[in-house]
């Protein structure tokens, strides 16, 4: 604290120039511009029927009204939300597991055949077979209209594996040597030493993968036809992009007559965004650190 104070005193000696004011002002404007769309959505979802129709609910809600949020109780929305949560959690955990398992062997430079294994991985990152054959493979595996289609194909990500491999290579070899001398097998080393030490990279990857999974809607459009299995993004998509409210609204618990469809739509948007908003601030420091690590090295 003392150091900070003296630093602050030193800094105060420099005058705040015009450029500083302009820069700070610009950032404030940018932040406001970024926030306003969100506020518009939230306020429409929270406003009174009358206010929305007459366009009074622009940035702040007029006539606080939580009716639109009864949509949470709608069986379609609720089920979809819980389904999405399950998909994200399960696929993220499994993905991290596969990443660890694959990155560890690749991190050993003297593993015979390691270069071939890396090449095997890299090629898949650059080339693909195209959508149609992929679709046929999924079909032959029975994954059409199956929740697992979100989890199984996405288990491997070459990019993440390489990031993790680089991270593991940075771990001091002495730690692993010590464990080896104590007679630990590879699996034990992986799970009891490397995994705990990899928490930063695991957190970063979990964040990116999890958010990506939560936002994923294209897989469903391609492979799932049963609306009961739609993740929240697709329910939202139906409502907002296609303007189709059929699957929703059949079971709204109370006072449906006075709730505008647009308010409901905004409420669903907010609901679909809430988990990300919750998770985001806590993990901000992790992903910034992760990007710094990744790019400074390369």
């Amino acid at each position, binding site marked *: 604290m003392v150091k900070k104070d003296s630093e602050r005193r030193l*800094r105060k000696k420099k005058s705040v120039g015009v*450029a500083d004011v302009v*820069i*700070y002002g610009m*950032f404030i404007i*940018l*932040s406001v511009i*970024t926030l*306003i*769309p969100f506020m*518009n*959505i939230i306020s429409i979802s929270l406003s009174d029927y009358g206010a929305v129709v007459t366009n009074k609910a622009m*940035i702040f809600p007029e006539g606080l009204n939580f009716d639109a949020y009864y949509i949470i109780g709608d069986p379609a929305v609720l089920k979809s939300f819980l389904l999405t949560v399950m998909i994200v959690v399960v696929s993220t955990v499994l993905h991290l597991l*596969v990443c660890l*398992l*694959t990155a*560890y*062997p*690749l991190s*050993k430079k003297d*593993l*015979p055949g390691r270069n071939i294994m890396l090449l*095997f*991985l890299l090629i*898949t990152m*650059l*080339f*693909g*077979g*195209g*959508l*149609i*054959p*992929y679709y046929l*493979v999924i079909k032959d*595996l029975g994954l059409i209209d199956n929740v697992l289609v979100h989890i199984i*194909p996405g*288990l*491997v990500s070459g990019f993440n*594996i390489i990031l993790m491999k680089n991270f593991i290579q940075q771990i001091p070899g002495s730690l692993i040597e010590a464990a080896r001398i104590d007679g630990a097998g*590879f*699996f034990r080393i992986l799970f009891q030493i490397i995994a705990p030490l990899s928490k930063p990279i695991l957190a970063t990857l979990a964040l990116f993968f999890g958010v990506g999974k*939560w*936002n994923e809607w294209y897989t469903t459009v391609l492979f799932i036809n049963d609306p009961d299995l739609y993740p929240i*993004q697709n329910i939202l*998509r139906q409502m*907002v*992009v296609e303007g189709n409210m059929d699957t929703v609204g059949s079971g709204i618990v109370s006072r449906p007559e006075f709730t505008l469809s647009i308010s409901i*739509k905004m409420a669903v*948007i907010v609901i*679909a*965004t809430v988990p*990300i908003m919750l998770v985001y*601030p806590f993990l*901000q420091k992790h992903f*910034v650190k992760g*990007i*710094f690590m990744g*790019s*400074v090295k390369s």
Partner: protein
Amino acid sequence: MYNNILDIVKRYLYNKYSEKTVWKRKKIAFFKIRSFVFAQLAYTTLWKGEILMRNQSRLKAKLKQYWPLYIMFIPCAAMLLVFNYYPMYGIVLAFKDYFIRLGIMGSPFAEDPLVHFKELFSDPYFLQVTGNTLRISALRLLCGFPAPIFLALLFNEVRAQRFKKSVQTILYLPYFLSWVVLGGMFKTIFMNDGLVNTWLGNFGIGPIPFLSDPKWFLAVTIITDIWKNMGFSSIIYLAAISGIDGEQYEAAMIDGADRWQRIRYITIPGLVPAISIQLILSLSGVLNAGFDQIFNMYSPVVYSTADIIDTYVYRIGLGDGNYEIATALGLFKSAIGFVLILITNKVIKKTGGEGIW
């Protein structure tokens, strides 16, 4: 006397060069060479063979020791084989006539293998769609590529840490939302009696059909794309800036350079590697033009400018079941993207920067 000497010389010469002795000498030479070669072979086999055997046994020892690691690799290998390598054979679909009953392998090759490509490129609407794609990518690059760089440069000039952190938190947020969410959001904001038009109404500007007019739709697409990605993309440049040697700044300040000179002569040159890599990656994706965003925000009214290659292929390829064209196009795009990466990489290297490899 002379006769004797002559005889002796004759006999000597005769013995020396007679056939018998020549043959004897050849025989001896042959045996000498053979024994020499044998000695060499023995040496090689024993010595190098030992190394070879040692390497082989080292290999075997390593395999014996490292076998759990191979087990660890199995899940990944299995996944890649099933979902990545196996579908690669499907590329041939671009050259065949697909009959669902026969599957990909069973379907016959088209009479003219390139018929689907020719179909595609001679379709005038396809050319328009390609033009749209290129136009949107060009606009994205022009407006959207410099924005994160400027942002990073300005972030670097902010000294108040808490202000910086808060602004960063706000600006990074849109990146994490899906275009489904954002599409819905912007449809609401840009609609005829939405936020933007109401605000414009305060200045007497009539309601602008942002999402239904082809030209305005382009503007909205680019602006919202920048809005979403600008903050997050700046992180890469911030990381690059933090990697610049602090001593250069100190030296510059001692020499009396002001803020803008420091930016121009130290920060920007320091960013050139990061900029090159991002540029290479962006240029290789020039045929992509943001399917996710456009698909969630477009409508038939704006097809004339907003229909890009991917959306068109989605409708005719998957919608109408024209699998061959869809595959042909995918192949085409991959090839072009690959070539673009190579070209851009070479160009950047030639102009002094560092490429990706």
